[in-house]
């Protein structure tokens, strides 16, 4: 594969000009996640509204890491803010699936939007954690707000 397939323009754009970066108030939960192999970090805050299927009112974050992890956080902001949690988690699930497909899956563009660009990254297992770092933090933060019944799993990917 050539590097341009992996580092698609949309990834490099988000990396160079991240959307929504910086920690903001108010927030319902804040979590910090790291990638133990490379030390990349993200601190992420989530604010939900009070709805039955609450809407993600804001996601703010501060992070440090490679282009893949930074672009992924920026796209997360773009894709998730303003959506109900149920939809955000659908995107998350599709993205997890894509990233674990070793590049064999046909990405669902409708659902994934800019995340489709990560199909090349999925071919490099060592980079999967980079791409998922912000998303795992999102899941963790939402589950913290929604309480344990929403988080059946002790561990995350």
């Amino acid at each position, binding site marked *: 594969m050539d590097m341009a397939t992996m580092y698609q323009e949309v990834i490099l754009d988000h990396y160079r000009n991240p959307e929504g970066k910086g920690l903001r108030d108010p927030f319902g939960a804040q979590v910090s996640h790291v990638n133990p192999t490379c030390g990349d970090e993200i601190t992420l805050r989530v604010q939900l509204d009070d709805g039955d299927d609450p809407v993600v009112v804001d996601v703010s974050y501060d992070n440090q890491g490679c282009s893949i992890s930074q672009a992924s956080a920026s796209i997360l902001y773009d894709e998730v803010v303003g959506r109900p949690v149920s939809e955000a988690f659908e995107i998350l699930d599709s993205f997890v699936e894509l990233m674990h497909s070793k590049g064999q899956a046909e990405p669902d563009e409708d659902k994934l939007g800019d995340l489709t660009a990560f199909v090349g990254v999925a071919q490099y297992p060592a980079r999967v954690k980079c791409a998922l770092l912000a998303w795992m933090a999102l899941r963790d933060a939402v589950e913290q707000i929604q309480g344990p019944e929403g988080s059946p799993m*002790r561990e995350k990917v």
Partner: protein
Amino acid sequence: MGQLDVAAIRSDFPILSRTVRNEKPLVYLDSGATSQKPTQVLDAERKFLERSNAAVHRGAHQLAEEATDAYEAARSAIAGFVGAEARDLVFTKNATEAINLVSYSFLNATLLAARSDSVDPELDRFVLAEGDEIVVTEMEHHANLIPWQELCAKTGAELKWIGLTDEGRLDLSDLDSIITARTRMVSFTHQSNLLGTINPVAPIVQRARQVGAMVLLDACQSVPHMPVDVVALDVDFMAWSGHKMLGPMGIGCLWGRRELLVDMPPFISGGSMIKTVSMTETTFAEPPQRFEAGVPMVSQAVGLHAAVDYLNELGMTAVHDHEVALTRSALDQLEKIPGLEIIGPRDLVDRGSAISFTVEGIHPHDLGQVLDNAGVAVRVGHHCAWPTCRRYEVPATTRATFYVYNNENDVTALVEAIRTAQQFFGTV
């Protein structure tokens, strides 16, 4: 002789065509100590080393990626071999380390809890108090006895054990008074490496559950020889070695129930088992990584993967049937030898292929020597189960063990060599 094509199998094992002691064909009856390795295993390991060798879970390059894939594929296959999930399987250097890992979890949890202000609910299950009890049996390999003795010596817990019947079986008659409300762990062998006895797991697990004790099964002599499903057995931990099941030396396995593994503090610590590290504070990765500090035995995992593929191909039921048939034949013929006494069950019910015996007037060391001279490789001594020897009042035994590559000729060679020894020492 079961459904195994032993001639075809034998051709996969280069060592079996060698000779020993003045051109005697090798009759290898010591697989209970360590098994031989088929070409398939040797080739898999070599191919890995010539193609994909790298440190796993660390590098961002293609070799590291291939090595990590190979290592984790091995974990899946080996876990699958005992009906388990990959993430619940920890690689160790041998079964001995696997058992120590569990015994040290109790020790470490107890020490950490003693120094923390708040009682950490995660550690709680592994914290021992003075007077808590650990239960083993009188037929344990030293690997499943000494770690518990040591744990007791350091914590004030007490070691109790299930005794043996004269027939070489566990004496379960007073199980309820041995496993009590004070019991925290019951650790016992699935199959005795000295007696050949296959122990009943269900009644012991049931009693342990009643009193809230954990169960560890030493499966060193069962996983290589018969179908084993860890979920059906319903134990909490299971330990076994790669080198006894056609795999490389230097790799062992610990399977653990997920909710216990996640609560266990680290045993050996270092690289690759962490989440974050600073000079003053470290947090740990989830299992199995938490228990695999340092560069692991990757090529050995690849070799063991090839070994379970090989065994799966044969079928573990066929493997077991084959061994039972050989054991039947061997017991029949051995019992006809005057002065020979079997130490262990004489019937084939719940019995594996380890056959220990004594021969009147000939010390096992001397018997082993004559057998060796005839090309027959057996093991003599206490077989790392010295208390079992004491129980049957023998200082040592001679032990023959069978595996997939053994056949009727091997049984005949054994029997003939014993008769030769009797003639040589003039005891018949």
